[in-house]
């Protein structure tokens, strides 16, 4: 099962693990390519995107336009949905054959499951949920930078001897590069030995998330609320604001434990860690555990009745006010703007 560690000198190239859902290449793949491109340029090495499962030609070419020099595509239908065994067996097979120096994946449910399996199968070092990756100019090593201990510290980690140097990267911690239609690259379609595709886990059914909660780690904007809402039905106020902002809906642990909203919405140490462009929260006091989940949000706007609430210590803009007055007023203003903006043109808000 275990291979001897590849000597660093024998390994070369930067790989990213792209993801598809129902054949559509996911945005995390483009974020990883933007990051991988910088690393590959710093190393003077090619950038390879690995995609498992069916995907259309345009999705594959789009990865070249977004920075890949080569796309390795294993289209076997057995790889349509993420299953740990075939995914790890196939990627381990590719890694052993081609020996990349660096291999990064998204810190998604897929990446955070696949990469630890791969780390053991290939005797590689792995760092979880990085927010920054750099190349050490002196040694050419990958420096893996991540928050730990509830975001209270930033740790820099390296992998001195084992290859590939692996990391999962927090979604939304890097913007995708704009597509360059002139970029050239190669798409390599591979078949793998059938025994690699065996799985003792079978997917029986799938039930899509009923609302905005499932995707809060991917959302550009998250609107969240907590105990200050007083009752579950008041989440309607939050949902309406979220719709006006095209946002996901988050919640504090308090709100989830009271049964006001489902666990997929929970933000914080025992819920999800998110890095949206904007985190807007109302009626959340900002416990240490909650703040741990939003430390890497780019901007934070907070509304709370208590001027001493901890959330104001991390907010870029705060209003000490009753959320039952403020939220409807804000939502109306945003809805009015949306309407007037939509009237002249047909441009969507994306």
């Amino acid at each position, binding site marked *: *099962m275990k291979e001897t*560690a590849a000597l660093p000198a024998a390994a070369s190239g930067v790989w990213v693990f792209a993801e598809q859902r129902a054949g559509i290449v996911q945005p995390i793949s483009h974020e990883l390519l933007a990051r991988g491109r910088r690393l590959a340029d710093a190393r003077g090495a090619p950038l390879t995107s690995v995609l498992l499962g069916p995907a259309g030609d345009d999705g594959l070419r789009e990865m070249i336009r977004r920075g890949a020099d080569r796309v390795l595509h294993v289209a076997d239908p057995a790889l349509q949905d993420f299953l740990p*065994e075939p995914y790890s067996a196939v990627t381990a097979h590719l890694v052993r054959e081609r020996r990349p120096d660096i291999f990064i994946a998204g810190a998604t*449910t*897929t990446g*955070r*499951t696949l*990469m*630890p*399996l791969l*780390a*053991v199968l290939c005797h590689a*070092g*792995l760092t*979880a949920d990085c927010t920054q990756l750099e190349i050490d100019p002196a040694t050419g090593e990958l420096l893996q930078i991540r*928050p*730990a*201990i*509830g975001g*209270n*510290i930033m*740790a820099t*980690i*390296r*992998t001195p001897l084992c290859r590939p140097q692996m990391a999962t990267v927090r979604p939304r911690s890097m913007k995708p590069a704009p597509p360059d239609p002139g970029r050239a690259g190669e798409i390599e379609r591979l078949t793998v030995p059938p025994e690699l595709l065996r*799985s*003792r*886990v079978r*997917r*029986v*059914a*799938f*039930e899509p*998330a009923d609302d905005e909660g499932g995707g809060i*780690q*991917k959302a550009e904007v998250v609107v969240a609320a907590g105990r200050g809402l007083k009752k579950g039905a008041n989440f309607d106020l939050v949902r309406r604001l979220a719709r006006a*902002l095209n946002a996901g809906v988050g919640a504090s642990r308090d709100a989830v434990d009271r049964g006001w909203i*489902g*666990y997929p919405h929970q933000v914080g*140490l025992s819920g999800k860690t998110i890095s949206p462009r*904007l985190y807007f929260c109302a009626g959340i006091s900002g416990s*240490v555990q909650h703040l741990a989940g939003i430390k890497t949000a780019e901007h934070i706007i*907070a509304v709370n009745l208590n*001027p001493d609430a901890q959330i*104001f*210590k*991390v*907010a*870029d*803009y705060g*209003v000490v*006010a009753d959320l039952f007055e*403020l939220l409807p*007023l*804000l939502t109306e*203003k*945003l809805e009015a*703007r*949306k309407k007037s*903006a939509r009237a002249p043109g047909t441009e969507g808000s994306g």
Partner: protein
Amino acid sequence: MDIIVPIKQVPETSKVRMDPNTGVMIREGVESIINPLDLYAIEAALQLAEGCGGRTTALSMGPAKAEAAVREAIAMGCTEGVLLSHRSFAGSDTWATSFALSLAIRKRGAFDLILCGERATDGDTGQVGPGIAAWLGLPVVTYVSRILECGPRAVVVRRMIEEGYETLEAELPCVLTVVKEAAYPRLPTLRGKQRARAATVPVWGPEDIGAPAESLGLKGSPTRVVKVESPSLARHGDVRTPKDPAELERAVDGIVDYLERLGLT
């Protein structure tokens, strides 16, 4: 049903310090608890064992005082506990930790299921559960939000992913990592605490599990922490305290302006 629950002892608060030279956490002087996310795995294991009869074993790796976490798991209802503790395990990353735990699980003998918490609240990696599965060559399902059925040969579970919930069937033995939705942890009972006090918790070292020294601890870990810093929270927020409806309106306009500057309106 024979279930193993790997657990970790973690610092109680997120106010812990790091040794700036070694990058290792200073655990002294901070109260320690069972990783809160492991409690869901313990509870799920107890419910399965109660439902179909069976044995639950809490397994931890850590310093000698991590025995307290193992005893607490017994107080909650686990049948027994084992602690892996020796200085040669110190400084293990997730690769070396999952390796040592997998050897301990092998030594303990046959089992049906390994139930892990999704991740620990201190290291926050979520890599040890899948790592154990890889070392043992077992199927794994992560982010399990509910165990729907558990038969003699397979388990059917719900898995929480970004887009919704998958239903998956996994052959036994296998490894599951559970999220908070999976169970509501019980508190230890008085009788459980008495049982925990009386229990013998074997402490295993590298020889007990047949671990090669070069694969343990800091020496066996592929990754190295090279630097640790405390990020300064450089947010200097503009906090408004409106006194009347007109001021509230201005504060709300301030939010709208802020959103507009971000291009979000």
